[in-house]
């Protein structure tokens, strides 16, 4: 039994299946006809911990053998891949032609493209390059019945038929199994690097990021973090309470100009600390930031808050105040360009057993007060029970989501009980 097929402590009762291609994937699904059997598509198994706790499951549909780059049309800046290819393997092959896929989810050596899309994995390369879903131009999906379907195609502009791929991005493999994807690609910027700017106050951090947002600088990525995260990541930024990391890229002159604009901005802050990292060091720092997905202990918690750039101010302040009040530490990163925040709690297991639930409730209150939504990336399995991992969603949308689930997977063969549509099954 492979360890990666263990989800919240449960193993597949009938074992794993390893299809080599779409045809085998299709017949694997159509062969499972017994009602009530549960299939979990597995990519790199890096995000299987997300979702409600599953009562049981029967098959791990492991896509790791569907790992080919089917076509790379470099002159057209497009490619077609099988869903089980890892991000790392794909990026390596694209780099040969000085191109890349503007997706930078964590642990690229294990994470597959299929899993990354299905779980709508967050990344940092999104300030300028938008959302991962914007890179998808076509998709082949195998329905729970085994039927193979496609939408879109390997061209960059297309409005023929419904844009079905959208349903599967962030669908956590509940409407079908992604088998092949067409992407549009991005040329690698000739020059890249990162500016680190440290601040003493939250206010300075926000002001600075607003200034960047308002300037002509077009960062590839931008993230801010608090002292605990700086320490945890062991970033060399002495005496900084907050740190902003800005990744820029471009041709030489454009690169220098962006750096100049930001260096001028920094001059206005006393006590600020700046550092510049050339490409290699910058890449390594971003890998470190990207691959930190929370603390190792069983009781650690990782959550994401969806908000707007300006609401991040209130959110960060209220979260910091609350954690100070309860005497716990909180590591936080914010993506002001995108309006998201990630928080990492190392441990809450103290004398009082009810405490973690209280803390989570209070975090929810803070999010609600700041008109934001929370989604847990990591929560200990026993806390998942009786708890909505997925945060709030309006009733109208939820109704349609349930209806989609009932239409495309009426027997809930795929990932039963784990998604926000399946409350009664979990």
């Amino acid at each position: 039994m492979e360890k990666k097929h263990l989800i919240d402590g449960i193993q597949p009762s009938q074992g794993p299946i390893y299809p080599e291609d779409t045809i085998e994937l299709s017949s694997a699904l159509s062969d499972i006809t017994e009602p009530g059997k549960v299939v979990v598509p597995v990519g790199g198994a890096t995000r299987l911990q997300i979702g409600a706790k599953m009562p049981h499951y029967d098959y791990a549909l492991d896509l790791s053998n569907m790992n080919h780059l089917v076509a790379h049309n470099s002159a057209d800046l497009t490619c077609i891949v099988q869903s089980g290819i890892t991000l790392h393997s794909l990026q390596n092959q694209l780099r040969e032609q000085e191109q890349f896929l503007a997706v930078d989810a964590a642990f690229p050596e294990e994470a597959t493209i299929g899993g990354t899309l299905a779980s709508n994995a967050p990344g940092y390369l999104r300030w300028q390059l938008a959302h991962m879903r914007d890179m998808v131009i076509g998709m082949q999906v195998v329905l729970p019945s085994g039927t193979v379907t496609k939408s879109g195609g390997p061209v960059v502009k297309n409005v023929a038929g419904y844009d079905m791929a959208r349903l599967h991005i962030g669908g956590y493999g509940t409407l079908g199994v992604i088998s092949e994807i067409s992407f549009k690609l991005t040329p690698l910027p000739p020059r890249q690097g990162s500016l680190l700017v440290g601040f003493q106050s939250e206010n300075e951090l926000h002001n600075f990021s607003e200034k960047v947002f308002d300037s002509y600088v077009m960062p590839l990525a931008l993230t801010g973090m608090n002292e605990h995260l700086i320490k945890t990541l062991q970033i060399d930024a002495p005496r900084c309470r907050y740190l902003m990391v800005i990744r820029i890229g471009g041709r030489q002159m454009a690169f220098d100009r962006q750096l100049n604009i930001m260096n001028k901005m920094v001059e206005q802050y006393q006590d600020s600390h700046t550092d510049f990292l050339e490409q290699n060091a910058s890449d390594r720092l971003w890998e470190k930031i990207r691959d930190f997905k929370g603390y190792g202990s069983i009781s650690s918690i990782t959550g994401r808050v969806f908000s707007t750039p300006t609401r991040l101010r209130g959110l960060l302040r209220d979260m910091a105040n609350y954690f100070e009040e309860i005497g716990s530490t909180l590591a936080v990163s914010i993506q002001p360009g995108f309006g998201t925040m990630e928080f990492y709690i190392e441990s809450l297991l103290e004398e009082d057993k009810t405490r973690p639930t209280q803390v989570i409730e209070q975090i929810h209150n803070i999010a609600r007060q700041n008109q934001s939504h929370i989604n847990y990336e990591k929560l200990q399995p026993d806390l998942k029970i009786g708890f909505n991992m997925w945060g709030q969603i309006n009733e109208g949308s939820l109704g349609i989501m349930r209806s989609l689930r009932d239409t495309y997977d009426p027997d809930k063969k795929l990932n039963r009980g784990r998604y926000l549509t399946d409350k009664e099954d979990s």
Partner: protein
Amino acid sequence: MSQSQSLKMKDLISELKRIVGDDYVLDDQADLLVYEYDGSIDRGNPVVVVLPNTAKEISQVLKLARLNSLPVVARGAGTGLSGGAIAEHGGIVLSMTRMNQILEVNRSDRYAIVEPGVVNLDLSTHVASEGLYYAPDPSSQRACTIGGNIAENSGGPHCLAYGVTTNHVLGMEVVLADGSITWFGDNERDGIGYDLRGITIGSEGTLAIVTKISVRLLRLPEHVKTMLMSFETIEDASAAVTGIIGAGMVPAALEMMDHFCIKAAEEAVGAGYPEGAGAVLLVELDGLLESVEEESEEIEAICREFSPLEIRVATDSLEREKLWSGRKGVLGALGRLAPNYYLVDGTIPRTKLVDVLKKINEISERSGYPIANLLHAGDGNLHPSILFDERKPGDVENILAIGAEILRICVDSGGVLSGEHGIGLEKQDQMPLMFSEEDMATMSLLKLAFETEDLLNPGKVFPTGAGCGDISQARAIARVGPGAYI
């Protein structure tokens, strides 16, 4: 219509008047005529046109329609080129033109909330003083509505670098077929659950009626530079396009016109294109001053490999407008070459430009119908325009067959049936060229999931085997007004 049905219709109309007010229900034949057409070849008569002002009113109209099993077709400005707004099966046309308010502009979070009847260009004009703009810019932007753009997932000349409508919509308020009102997504850039926002965009009004839209606004660029390059042959120009994209450059716009278009534009607006040019490329770069300069140098170098007849550069807005004038004037100018034209919309991989244009040329020679090629070349989106005379017997049938043949070539070369104008009624019967029965069945299951009872814009997108009507693209172009271009 039988006595009881017509009575029922009378009741229905008075009920509709109660919902939206007497002035906003049209059932007079003369009034309805205006709503018979959009920019496509099709036509259809609605029974009644309703002009609602709020989502609540739309909700009531949809409930009433459902009770009476009446189709409902939303309509923006009627500039659509694939028959999307045609009430083919009668029923109610919901004209969204009164819902034209820009409700909120949030400069710090860079979004605006608008009603669906807001005209595309009006939004950019409105936010320009804040240094912002709304990126998707269909050539019809002076007339088309954001609601129509959502339904068609419209693009525009500047979508090459910035993406099409779906890349710029954060969320929207919709009225579902049962009359319930809800939001798909909101002002946040990310969300939880299936992407209902994404699946509704481009669904051609068949899943929900959009009543509010939250769109992303971008910062106006620091610098813009436009270049016009003329080449001896269309092959050279196509090779230059492939060279530019292959070198990893994605300009803001990369447009191409062939010798027919050049000739027409020259005669109409005197854009000053060099004589004897087989094709021109219009390249626009924007962004940071330095990046524009660095990229324009590289682009020039690439183009020089294909022996351009001339390269002209514009950096101020007046000069830029001059370079664009030929491109923007083409459509109006085609009228000088023939009484009618039929504009086809398909996309191909950019590396196939030379191949496909050659095949289109062969069709033109074989059939005797001139075909003017207008292209959003940077993203492989072709608009071959077949010149003909509607009054000549057989011409309409012939050019429709040619249009279909061109689309088959696009699909065979790895491309698709529509780059930006949608499927609607125009191309529904060609869907099997691209999609299997299973693909289409899977797509149409969405209507089931949205519980539309197939009353929202029925009979569109998927094949029915229906025929064709007359050519009325010209009518839609007139709706965009003087200087309309595609």
